[in-house]
């Protein structure tokens, strides 16, 4: 009752002000983060930046097609050149799908394939696709989706390659380009089943030589038969004329045969 009668609020009767100023302690500019004065806090909250809204919300507008620029990255160019080289230099190029394989298996596979002079190359689709579309290998284009690797070799070792790949379930052979011929997986398997070049050459030569030899034996059959009959006849005559010393004309006919 004694405090509230006066208009002014005296400080002595246990009234704490809402704001308290710290007399000692940190200064205005500190190295640590200092809480803002309450009035400043209010001012900052009121004067926050509110972005102007566009008249039409961007969701309603059709999105602009952001063209991926060519960039002509030097690195991309280098990779493209490497791919072109690969396609030019090697006779056998096999495309396989690569699902993630443990590292040691990868190293082992590379080792086995290296023994047969087959190199393993990782390729990026976005680099290979433009190279292929400009070269003559357009039919290989649909193969290059998802992660792929290329197995390239200057020699044709389809059997060994298939054997190595059979042991790796995570690598799936999709197709191959062998001697500028595009083969599917079945084609590669058939190629592996073919006998080697020398054997097939020998087989061809034998087949080719068979016909003329048959023909010559057919043609000679008549005259050979005749000479055989004459020889037999002579022998019988000689056997009958035991003791006649002269050998008549049959010596000529046996000579001609």
């Amino acid at each position, binding site marked *: 009752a004694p405090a509230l009668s006066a208009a002014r609020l005296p400080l002595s009767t246990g009234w704490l002000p809402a704001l308290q100023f710290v007399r000692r302690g940190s200064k205005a500019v500190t190295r640590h983060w200092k809480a803002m004065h309450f009035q400043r806090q209010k001012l900052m909250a009121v004067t926050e930046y509110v972005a102007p809204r566009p008249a039409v919300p961007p969701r309603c507008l059709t999105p602009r097609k952001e063209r991926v620029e060519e960039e002509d990255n030097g690195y991309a160019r280098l990779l493209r050149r490497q791919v072109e080289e690969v396609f030019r230099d090697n006779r056998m190029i096999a495309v396989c799908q690569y*699902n993630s394989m443990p590292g040691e298996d990868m190293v082992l596979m590379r080792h086995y394939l290296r023994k047969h002079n087959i190199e393993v190359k990782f390729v990026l689709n976005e680099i290979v696709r433009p190279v292929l579309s400009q070269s003559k290998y357009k039919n290989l284009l649909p193969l290059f989706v998802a992660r792929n690797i290329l197995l390239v070799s200057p020699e044709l070792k389809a059997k060994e390659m298939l054997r190595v790949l059979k042991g790796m379930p995570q690598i799936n052979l999709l197709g191959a380009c062998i001697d500028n011929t595009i083969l599917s997986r079945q084609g590669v398997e058939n190629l592996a089943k073919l006998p080697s070049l020398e054997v097939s050459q020998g087989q061809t030569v034998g087949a080719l030589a068979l016909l003329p030899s048959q023909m010559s034996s057919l043609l000679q059959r008549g005259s050979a038969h005749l000479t055989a009959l004459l020889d037999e006849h002579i022998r019988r005559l000689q056997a009958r004329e035991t003791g006649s010393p002269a050998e008549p004309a049959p010596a000529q006919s046996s000579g001609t045969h």
Partner: protein
Amino acid sequence: KKMASKIRVVLRPVKSIVVRFCPFESNVESTRKFLGCINHKKIQATNRNCEVTADVRHDGSEPLVDVMFADGERLIMKGANLTTIEMLTALGSRCNAKELMEEQKSKKKNP
């Protein structure tokens, strides 16, 4: 939006998966990506006995995913018009449902 490699599928109730496609066709992309995702380390680690086979053909047939579950059920997904994420989520939801059923069965047996 959602990356296909982030979807985790628990392959425990699955016995085998056969992925058949013809790489020279143009509608095989999602199936091939599905195959790639399934062969991820973490998904393979959930079930080492599950055999994932890839059947590469050249007869113009459409891409197919054939999943054989341990209780004899079969799930066939024709990937020609499906996206990778759809296939993965479908497989994942079925696997989860089977896991729940098995857990409930085992709980009933051992109360």
